[in-house]
């Protein structure tokens, strides 16, 4: 039976959720990584020494990680296997990593003029932000309740171990560094981030 576009639209409209989207998804946690640049750039002297770039990543559960990284000329959204994700984590360990939950339906703003890595990451997280620098976004996020600083060394050890394992879908533990310096165990597997 041939279907009509208006029938499908009417069907889809009836299935919209409160945020106006077709599928209701829970807000997920992202690892927001503030890192020094991999190559020296002329503008690096004007920004924070270890927060020169920012990207976001999160595990997808089955050996995959989703990495969202703003380049100069494109927005890279890629799924990486554990070994490639490990490279990004090692890079992240040179800076600071925050674990932040995205905001639904978000409070970010489109008309920011210059959509650089900090602006696009704020847009990804649904955060209203006025800063154009990764360090500005870092200061904005680190003061938020619920945002935690991740001990990347511990996570790296876990990941290196996992990359050698054949079964990755076991329950894992990520050590999370509290603001007072103490460490606490927090579950870290794909499900937990979804």
């Amino acid at each position, binding site marked *: 039976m041939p279907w009509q576009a208006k029938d499908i*639209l009417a069907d889809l*409209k009836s299935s919209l959720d409160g945020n106006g989207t*077709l599928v209701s998804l829970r807000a997920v946690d992202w690892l927001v990584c503030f890192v020094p*640049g991999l190559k020296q750039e002329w503008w690096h002297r004007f920004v924070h020494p270890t927060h020169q770039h920012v990207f976001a990543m999160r595990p997808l559960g089955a050996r995959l990680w989703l990495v969202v990284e703003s380049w100069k000329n494109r927005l890279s959204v890629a799924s990486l296997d554990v070994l*490639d994700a490990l490279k990004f984590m090692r890079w992240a360990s040179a800076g600071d990593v925050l674990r932040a939950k995205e905001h639904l339906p*978000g409070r970010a703003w489109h*008309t920011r003029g210059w959509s650089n890595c900090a602006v696009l990451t704020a*847009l*990804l997280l649904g955060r209203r932000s006025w800063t154009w620098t990764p360090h500005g976004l870092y200061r904005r996020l680190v003061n938020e309740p619920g945002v935690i600083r991740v001990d990347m060394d511990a996570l790296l050890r876990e990941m290196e171990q996992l990359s050698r394992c054949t079964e990755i879908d076991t329950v894992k533990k990520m050590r999370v560094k509290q603001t007072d310096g103490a460490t606490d165990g927090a579950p870290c597997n794909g499900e937990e981030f979804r």
Partner: protein
Amino acid sequence: MNPTARDIDSKTEWSPRNPVHKKTPGAVPGVPVDLSYSVDQNGSLVTLPPAQWLICFVPGLRKQWWHPFVNAKHKHVFAMRPLDTANWILIEPWWTRVMVTVLSSVDAVKFLRWGACGDVLRVREAVPGRGNQARGWSNCAVLCSFILGRASHTWTPHGLYRQLCREEDVKHENVEDLIIEQFTSMADKASADALRLDPEAIAAPLETVLTHLGRNIVFAVMDPSILQLGRTAVIEAERFPRATRVYSERLITPAIATLTRILQDASARGDIKVQSCQRAASEFIAMLRGNMHLEVVMELREPPCAAEVDARVNAVVSGFLRGVATKKASGNKSFRNSARDESTNRNALAG
């Protein structure tokens, strides 16, 4: 002039006692050196082939005041692409955020259906790209062009559509074909994995072969991605019947064909006696799936564990062979079951 006087080479003789570490060009303090050296020509840590995105230009789902000023069919744009597994990456710019998420095939089909109301283009992203960050207003069209790495000066989805249509490699896509493509690749992979038989396995007694295959088939149909595929096939049977047919033709039919061949061989050897090997194979698979598969598809219960699968397959195989084995074959050790085994098998089937 003092005869001992000579010219001093400032480079060699005034150099400090401890040689200064020469700065590695391009290396950044704090970053592991191997990482600095492993960036590719695009400055990226990992070199990935440019991905192909499905760019969906769609009408709005809710009325907005500005809709009269834009193209009737192209009021919004989002990007999606399948992952290797049964999941899709979706990037949809909202008013107040950009949603980057991973959807199951069932949810992805909803977005594909939305795409079917407008136009869907298959576009390869440009790496390292020629996009521009300073576009002022990063709306859906601007963000999608940035994802694709395209230099663009338009702020409307229709403007981006026209720009992409002018490119040579960009293809218009039919949504039903896309769903069929997704179904086919998933079903073919599951089917190939489940029905793979080594020559040694084929030479084994019939009971062993059926147990091996039965176990693989149950695991394949209980796989989360195949379960989702089945649910999608049911939901979209009316709109996309060709896609639903793929589920049956690519997943169930090959299993029946493989089993038919095995049963025909067994029949030729005189191990079994059946009127139709094909019907017997079909019934064997129906016994394997039973109510358990329906309950799992409807999410009334969790998929079975390995022990439960083994018990069920053993029960089905012994029950099936009792029905079809000839008297000669029943005398063989491999076809015999003790009374206790039969009782266990009945319980497994009932469970």
